């Protein structure tokens, strides 16, 4: 029986077997990259909102503090989306006829909530608490990015567990003085690690990585 394949095909077959390892590894890398990409995590994607509320305008231009609207951030798990009344505090006086703000006025008139779209949507089995992070010196911008530069808010970080754990394992890399927590323009100093280690001592920051810290 004559040989069907030429001898050289042996090399091809060896190469393809060898290559398959790389192809599979490559595929895995692609899958992992996709999984971490904004396509899956929705990081960097702006959401459409019923009212095009601009943090850039309100925070950077007007200089309103985070806590004017997100009132419970220092005391509770959630930072709170402000009630319509908070918008109306100003907008019953200024821009009170603007068509853009009609949904806000409609909400106030009809006593019906504005239906915002959630931007930072953690999985239901993760129980995140804002107050403890804020009180231990984690700044708003550490997780939420430069909200003062966002016309419409997008998610800055991936919000994946490895991202959480990065900080929970190495809090010294991210912690800042308490008086700088709400400062959007805060930049980590060059000696962050030294400062971080000092603040960890001072604020008694623990590196909590037990499952039940977040999952119940």
């Amino acid at each position, binding site marked *: 029986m004559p040989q069907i394949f030429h001898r050289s095909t042996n090399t091809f077959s060896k190469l393809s077997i060898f290559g398959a390892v790389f192809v599979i590894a490559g595929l895995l890398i692609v899958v992992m990259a996709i999984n971490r990409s904004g396509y899956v995590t929705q990081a960097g994607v702006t959401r459409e909102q019923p009212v095009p509320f601009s943090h850039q305008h309100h925070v950077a231009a007007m200089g309103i503090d985070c806590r004017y609207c997100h009132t419970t951030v220092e005391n509770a798990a959630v930072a709170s989306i402000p*009630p319509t009344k908070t918008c109306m505090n100003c907008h019953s006086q200024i821009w009170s006829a603007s068509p853009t703000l009609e949904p806000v006025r409609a909400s106030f008139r009809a006593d019906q909530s504005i239906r915002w779209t959630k931007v930072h*949507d953690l999985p239901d089995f993760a129980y995140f608490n804002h107050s403890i992070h804020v009180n231990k010196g984690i700044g708003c911008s550490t997780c939420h990015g430069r909200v003062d530069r966002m016309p419409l808010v997008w998610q800055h970080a991936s919000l994946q567990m490895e991202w959480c754990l990065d900080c929970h394992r190495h809090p010294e890399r991210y912690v800042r003085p308490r008086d700088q927590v709400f400062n959007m323009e805060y930049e980590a100093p060059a000696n962050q690690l030294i400062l971080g280690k000092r603040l960890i001592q001072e604020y008694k920051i623990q590196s909590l990585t037990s499952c039940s810290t977040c999952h119940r």
Partner: protein
Amino acid sequence: MTTGNGQLDLPYLRAKLTDRRGQLYWRSLEELAETDAFQEFLYREFPQQSDRWTDPIGRRRFLHLMGASLALAGLAGCTKQPAEPIMPYVNAPEEIIPGKPLFFATAALLSGVAEGVLVENHMGRPTKVEGNPEHPASLGATDVFAQASILTLYDPDRSQTITQFGEIRSWSAFLSEMREAVQRFKQNKGSGLRILTETVTSPTLASQLKKLLSDYPSAKWHQYEPVGRDPARAGARLAFGTDVAARYHLEKANVVLSLDADFLSTGPGKLRYVRDFTARRKVHQSQREMNRLYVLESTPSNTGAMADHRLPLKASEVEGFALALAAELGIAWRVEIPAKLPGSTWVGPLARDLKRHPAATIVIPGEHQPPLVHALAHAMNHTLGNVGSTVIYTEPVEANPVDQFESLRELVREMQSGSVETLLIFGGNPVFAAPVDIPFADALAKVKQRVYLGLYNDETSELCHWHIPEAHSLESWTDARAYDGTVTILQPLIAPLYGGKTAHELMAALTDQSEQSSYEGVRQYWSSQFTRIPVMVSGARSSSAVCQKASGDFEEFWRKSLHDGFVANSALPAKPVALTAQPAVLRTDATTPGLELIFRPDPHVYDGQFANNGWLQELPKPHTRLTWDNAALISPATAERMGMTNEELVELRFQGRRVEAPAWILPGHPDDSVTIHLGYGRRRTGRVGMGAGFNAYAVRTSGAAWFGSGLSLSKTGRRSRLACTQHHHSMEGRHPVRAGTLEDYHRHPDFVREMGEEPPKDLSLYPERKYKGNAWGMVIDLSSCTGCNACTIACQAENNIAVVGREQVIIGREMHWIRVDRYYAGGLENPATYHQPIPCMQCENAPCEVVCPVNATAHSQEGLNDMVYNRCVGTRYCANNCPYKVRRFNFLLYSDWETPSLKLGRNPDVTVRSRGVMEKCTYCVQRINAVKIEAEREGREIRDGEIATACEAVCPAEAITFGNINDPNSRVAQLKANKLNYGLLSELQTRPRTTYLAALKNPNPEMKTS
């Protein structure tokens, strides 16, 4: 070992129990007999793994579906999380911080009597009931009914609309019909108007009723409740010639005698009594002495399980014993002692022990015992000098104490004669629960206008013209009194979900102010009455000397009373009473031969009102550990004589009526009597309660409301299946209970430790863990635990634990994170009973952790065995390797993910588990974290006792202590240092964080055999 037909060989069991050296603790007759069925059950190790395929889907179909699911599972992984809306308030309420619960004080009602509670409210949704630590009847604890009331509130099967002849009507339509009726009543002075309520303690409702009766003098108010307290009332009248209520101070009592009274688990004061009683049994604290409890009982109860000496007697024999004891104690009355006296050996030593402690003993009569027993108990308490010290008499708590059977009989007589035109039924379910010799349902047909206010569309609503949905007590403004008379003004935690109405609103409909809300009604009443506090209400009875004016601002009074959860100083004051000279006859008919039938309210379904509550239905009943059913409880010897086995259907014929019931052999039950529980066999209720059990009311007459002789039993040859949990999660005879006597403890305090062995700490393959900061631990005191099950149901409410249903319980799949195991020690006739709550032990060397292939159960930095649901793939290796059998697996989707009303009641801080994941006790990690965050924010350490797990918080006996074992001053660390402390199966080197304090009894040295 069994005889041929699967029947237990009782002589063999007796021989086995007597032959044995040392104490044997056993869980059930089957275990003791090592029956084939029990062996099979154990062999499977996991009853859960049983091959029973309960779905109607066949194997082939299953494979089809599995194949399709696998293929589609890949696709499902590609979907992105959908966008979720977030809806803020328009105007934020001032007090609400989203995610932080508020607590409001109100009360839970049972038989009209209040138990002060604080209800956790998440943004307007009540989710969990806690006891009110400042309320005298609660002191922070609650019973199982209060815990389960959350589920009743959100029950989707509650009636949701007003109906007339089954058609939906509006409230205004009802009001206009009532307006016509009111015109009629004004002319005929209300003749033909009858109101039927349950026991009323509400001062507002009572004043509304009294006003109505004075406006319409010919109208009448009747009261009936199937689990009433008629014998106690009659007994007080017999002894004192007047209506009074007895209140006990168990904290002052050295010796307590119960004459068939289950005072630790029934009755309005039970929570306070448990607290006061068990406080005297905690020898690990500074005290060296314990109180002593003697119990005579006609059916095994939790009080009997706590007894130092327990004597099973037929219910009819208690009277004779009481007479003999009264004579021995030398009461002022002349009594006749029956010739033949069961339990006669007890009389002498018991009387001597009682006399040894003047003014520091209590004789408590059983609520279901005849008036004579009550009268004798009052007389004995007088003779022993207890009155004023351990026993206090007050005005009755009820607004209008009447003989309720008589009241119902009179109403039915009038209904039959046709003189009742309008009948308003406020709550209860009299069609279902009336005694059979009072034909309430038949007589109801003769009433022209029938209105029923009730929570459910039930047997009574079926026969009434108008059915008004009742507002749940968590939706109502009303008021009620506690066991000691303390008034609580109940405030609603949520607006009525289904437009329910309260009794106050129905009462207002009968007046000219027909639209008065219950808030206005209650407020109006108190604004006119509040200055009469302290001491008032039931107006005429209060004497002028104590009617001093309270200082005056009503708004302040109102706000303070609502905030505190009770009206300060409203407890009824002690009332001086004098024994009557000599009641007519103080004798008893000699003990009746033959079988006796005993009726008791069901421990969990009660009189039937909780039949549609899945939490209560699935809660294993004390002693029998049955769920979803009632049974005819008989003693082993009687079963043997009759040739009956467990689950065999027997026919009970009693006074000409019959009912079929499954038999259940209960060690410690007195011979020749049968106990059946009321409340089951509902013909018309929601989806949960339909078809469960048999109806004990079918044989209950007003003459033999609690027990009666003349029962005959016959076998039907058929069997039924009962969902009993007592074999589930067996630790296979490793004797987890350790017990001794007070004498042992004082003589040789190390006896507990010597009962087991504790391997050295370093005898482990795994490296020693270091716990810096907090290390959580728990101690459970077996001397205090009464086995009331409140921990199980509190855990269920706190941790969103699913109900699985009867079929799933039969195959061992109940989900309770903390179970209460029941152990017997001693012979079949009168064994000692021990209750042992078993949560997760949170082992330091946890066998579950090392076998998980996906690291879904991991050790936390504070020593908890964390369970990570989203990692779990359901191998169940962990449950297999857990020696304590505390892990529960979601074989099916047990949680209801669909019903909107049930979603409202869930704890938002705990994940609702899905199918295919393991779950178990977490030490209420959500509570730990909440307090930890609070403390960290304030920059301080967590205070001892600041974190209370749900089971600890609810426990009336304070048997459970949780805390930081790294802090040597914490309560839990000090208890663990006690000599009584031992770890369960600690010889396995699991080093459990949950440990136990051995049970101590304090027997009378004069009575060696109990």
